[in-house]
């Protein structure tokens, strides 16, 4: 049965969940791991135990952000209708803060004050990001993207995470949010001589 947007109601559950569900699954996993870190912090766990929990968490924070930037946000910019540009700018900025927190933690011995500072910074940025994404980007995409597109992206998201497990083959670097959005928008509407603006699209470079 169609819901009028090409989505399906009462249809069988697809083999691969749609990308919005996979992103929620990762968010839940992040929350649980950070909660476990609280327990370890309270019990003053040794660095080996902390590292055993932190490394997979840090890696998935990086891989998840990269996967969203390569797979989810380009499509949100295409299909979203609730100011997807603003949602994307916020998300890329948050991803940068998460990456910065992870890198800050990695510069210190596990369990040291500097390490916890980095972990806390990554967590705070991630909490903010998840809250915004769950209330803005994900609902926007569920409402306006076809279910088959969401499932197809779910497959890509799963494959990407598998291919780059532990950040294998990824270069983890911050991205300029505005340049990221501009690049995707140029792909969506490529400049040609048949439309008005054929500039390089540089525009203002003032920080937002």
């Amino acid at each position, binding site marked *: 049965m169609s819901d009028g947007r090409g989505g399906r109601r009462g249809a069988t559950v697809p083999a691969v969940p749609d990308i919005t569900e996979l992103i929620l699954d990762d968010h839940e996993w992040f929350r649980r791991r950070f909660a476990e870190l609280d327990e370890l912090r309270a019990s003053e766990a040794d660095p080996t135990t902390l590292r055993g929990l932190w490394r997979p968490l840090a890696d998935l924070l990086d891989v998840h952000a990269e996967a969203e930037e390569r797979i989810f946000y380009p499509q949100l910019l295409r299909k979203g209708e609730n100011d997807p540009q603003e949602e994307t700018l916020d998300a890329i900025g948050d991803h940068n803060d998460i990456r910065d927190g992870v890198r800050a933690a990695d510069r210190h011995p596990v369990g040291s004050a500097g390490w916890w500072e980095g972990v806390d910074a990554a967590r705070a940025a991630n909490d903010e990001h998840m809250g915004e994404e769950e209330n803005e980007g994900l609902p926007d995409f569920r409402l306006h993207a076809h279910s088959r597109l969401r499932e197809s992206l779910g497959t890509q998201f799963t494959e990407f995470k598998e291919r780059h497990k532990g950040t294998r083959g990824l270069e983890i670097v911050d991205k300029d949010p505005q*340049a990221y959005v501009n690049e995707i928008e140029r792909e969506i509407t490529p*400049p*040609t*001589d*048949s*439309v*008005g*603006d*054929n*500039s*390089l*699209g*540089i*525009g*203002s*470079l*003032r*920080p937002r």
Partner: protein
Amino acid sequence: MTTPSDHLLRAHAPIPTESWKAIDDEARERLTPLLAARKVVDFVGAGGWHRSAYSLGRTSPLAGPPPGVTGAAEVRTRTRRVQPLSEIRVPFVVGRDEIDDIQRGAADPDFDDLARAARVAAEIENRTVFHGWPAAQIEGIAQTTTYPTAALGADCLEWPGIVARGVDALRRNGIGGPFALCVGPDLYTQIVESTELGGYLLLDHLKNILGGEVIWSVGVDGAVLVSARGGDFVLDVGQDLAVGYSHHDADTVHLYIEESLTFRVLEPDAAFVLSV
């Protein structure tokens, strides 16, 4: 029918779409880090190639109505004042072999002349904003500032105090921050390689004073301290930076980077000039 961007004649160049994308990407990557002025002034536009002037919102009196009109003794006539946009076109060449290699998948095309043109275009824009362009009726930030120029001197460890006094002068005149220090490449190198007593980085000290950034600015003489709060400086762009086609021969394609712009200082009190 032509469109505003047809004047770039891109469709007439012997350049396939993929190679155009590579050229545009390279131009964008080269230009963006060089366009220091755009990091601190308000960008208005892009208004397109047809845009010809920035309205000053002011008028000049006219001597009277057209000759021969009777009963016009009480008629008041004025003419609107505008500042014209000026065009910049910086030529460069790309080898046709390079274009062919891009189509074959080459990931390292030789765009040396494009890099040179990008630097020239960016320097023109920066210099226009900071030091003006008399022939284009543009006054730059350094020319309109109301403060006397302060000398930085040779000892860079003195610079934090000089910059702090500049920031103080702006604040005393009601100019809010954050502030940015736009510095020429040589000075910037001196700043980033210097540490103060105690190992504190000079760059970090300056950023703390500014509450903003120290910006590497090709085309700036000395340094210019500006408020980055917005509303004080306007870069009005018609055609934003774009790559157009001129002509070609058997070996090379002649292209150019183009822009049309003008610049206005709205608040001369919002900038402080520091000389070397």
